[in-house]
């Protein structure tokens, strides 16, 4: 059971991008999200596009998969594009349809915004494609760990996320089983009146809730039996230690940003 689109789905190829420290990758994505909105020069877009494509190739994941994965966002991109085209009243008028007049400024802004969003989504999807969800959680936990001092439950939050991730496939399987069982008892999830479909969903949700509660109960017992009593005084098996490749990646990324600043000014 795999979702039909690839957003957030990890694909293992063992490339150098996969092996980078998740913290490095997270920080890079954060910085990218920030700077991409400062880009307003054609060369900046060329620079970013080249950068993103080089990284994508380095992941060894087929480009068509990556693009297929971000397709659902395409609709959103188109929508933003048209919104800008229609709402902007700058530059020369290009054509008029009824009450609407389209200006060159609108088209340019539309393209700019779409390209920015596209780059952003593309780069972020590279993070999730090359980093297992658990590594992202680890990276976040480590990056946010200074917040522990001011009483933010960073460990508990990370554990919560990791347990959620761990049980997603289990719950998907469970949903599949229960919906099959109810379908065998004559439920039709696809057609019927709104009321009968709502009832169909209830016949799926209640068993699912009950089983999730039972699992949560069992899991809590199992964790307690294995000596879990909160984040205090625990050690952690997952060590994140920066490797040579991480430093190299940081330097390359820094150079890219310097180049960007140079191009912009």
């Amino acid at each position: 059971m795999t979702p039909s689109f690839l957003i957030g789905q990890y694909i293992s190829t063992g490339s150098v991008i996969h092996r980078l420290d998740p913290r490095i990758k997270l920080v890079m994505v954060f910085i990218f999200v920030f700077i991409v909105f400062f880009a307003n020069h054609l060369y900046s877009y060329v620079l970013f596009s080249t950068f993103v494509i080089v990284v994508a190739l380095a992941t060894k994941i087929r480009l068509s998969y990556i693009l297929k994965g971000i397709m659902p966002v395409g609709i959103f991109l188109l929508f933003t594009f048209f919104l800008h085209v229609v709402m902007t009243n700058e530059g020369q008028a290009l054509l008029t349809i009824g009450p609407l007049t389209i200006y060159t400024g609108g088209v340019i802004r539309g393209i700019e915004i779409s390209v920015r969003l596209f780059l952003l989504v593309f780069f972020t999807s590279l993070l999730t494609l090359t980093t297992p969800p658990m590594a992202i959680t680890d990276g976040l936990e480590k990056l946010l760990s200074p917040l522990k001092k001011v009483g933010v439950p960073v460990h508990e939050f990370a554990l919560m996320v990791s347990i959620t991730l761990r049980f997603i496939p289990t719950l998907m399987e469970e949903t599949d089983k229960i919906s099959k069982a109810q379908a065998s008892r004559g439920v039709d999830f696809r057609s019927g009146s709104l009321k009968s479909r709502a009832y169909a969903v209830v016949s799926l949700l209640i068993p699912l809730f009950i089983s999730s509660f039972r699992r949560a109960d069992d899991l809590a017992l199992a964790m307690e039996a294995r000596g879990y009593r909160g984040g205090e005084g625990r050690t952690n098996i997952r060590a994140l230690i920066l490797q040579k490749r991480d430093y190299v990646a940081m330097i390359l990324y820094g150079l890219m940003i310097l180049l960007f600043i140079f191009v912009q000014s």
Partner: protein
Amino acid sequence: MSWIEFRHVSFRYHENEPWVLDDVSFVVQSNESVALIGKNGSGKSTIAKLMIGLLQPQAGEIFIDGQIVNEETIWDIRSQVGLVFQNPENQFVGTTVYDDVAFGLENLAVPREEMTHRIERSLQQVGMLAYRDREPHDLSGGQKQRIALASVLAVEPKILLLDEATSMLDPHGTESINQLFRQLKREQNMTHVTVTHDTEEVMYADRVLVIDQGKIAEDCTPRQLFCRQELLDEYGLRIPFIVELTNELYKQGISLDDPMNHKELLDQLWTFHLTE
């Protein structure tokens, strides 16, 4: 000194409800292997949970190696008693095999070097080292139970507690866990307690406690239990084929020395006819 002792233990989940366990007393010696059997709902799983302090009795006391089980001692007790539960899915905490085995060690604040070492050793013991980076949804039920066992072994407990650990597995998974369990019994000095309704597994225990309606109905050896058909019927237990055939052969004047499997039975029959 005894390893596990129940002294007049009574337990129920809520007031006004019938007792799940009613004045239960027994002792399990160090390195002994004991099977707790009984019908569904007889209270046998409650005993396992009480031993590790997941439940507290309303009356009576429980001792693990002379140390009373209570709020203050449970964390220490839990590092000495390893419990494998019934449902393979619901006791897998980590996102990968490796993380899951690490979980208990992390809780005990074991230093990282030591952890790596212990995780590898325990995964080796259960024959799952090659699966260290697998995620739980890639594993069969039997494999998950092996990991659960490895997680417990990594903590190096003195008592190993199996609470119907094979009842949700297919025959293949059941057999692999049972074999592993027997091997651990031979190779390691540990006290073993199995809560089960699998009578095949009972054959390998030193002693059997039959639990019925919250009380210890019988405390005997597997052999004694299997000789009494009326007991087996009363508590809803199925007699293993080997034992039943051995009993029937005895009625035919062929007395054998408790064969445990087909090969032993055939070999004994062979020597029997030679010496007779």
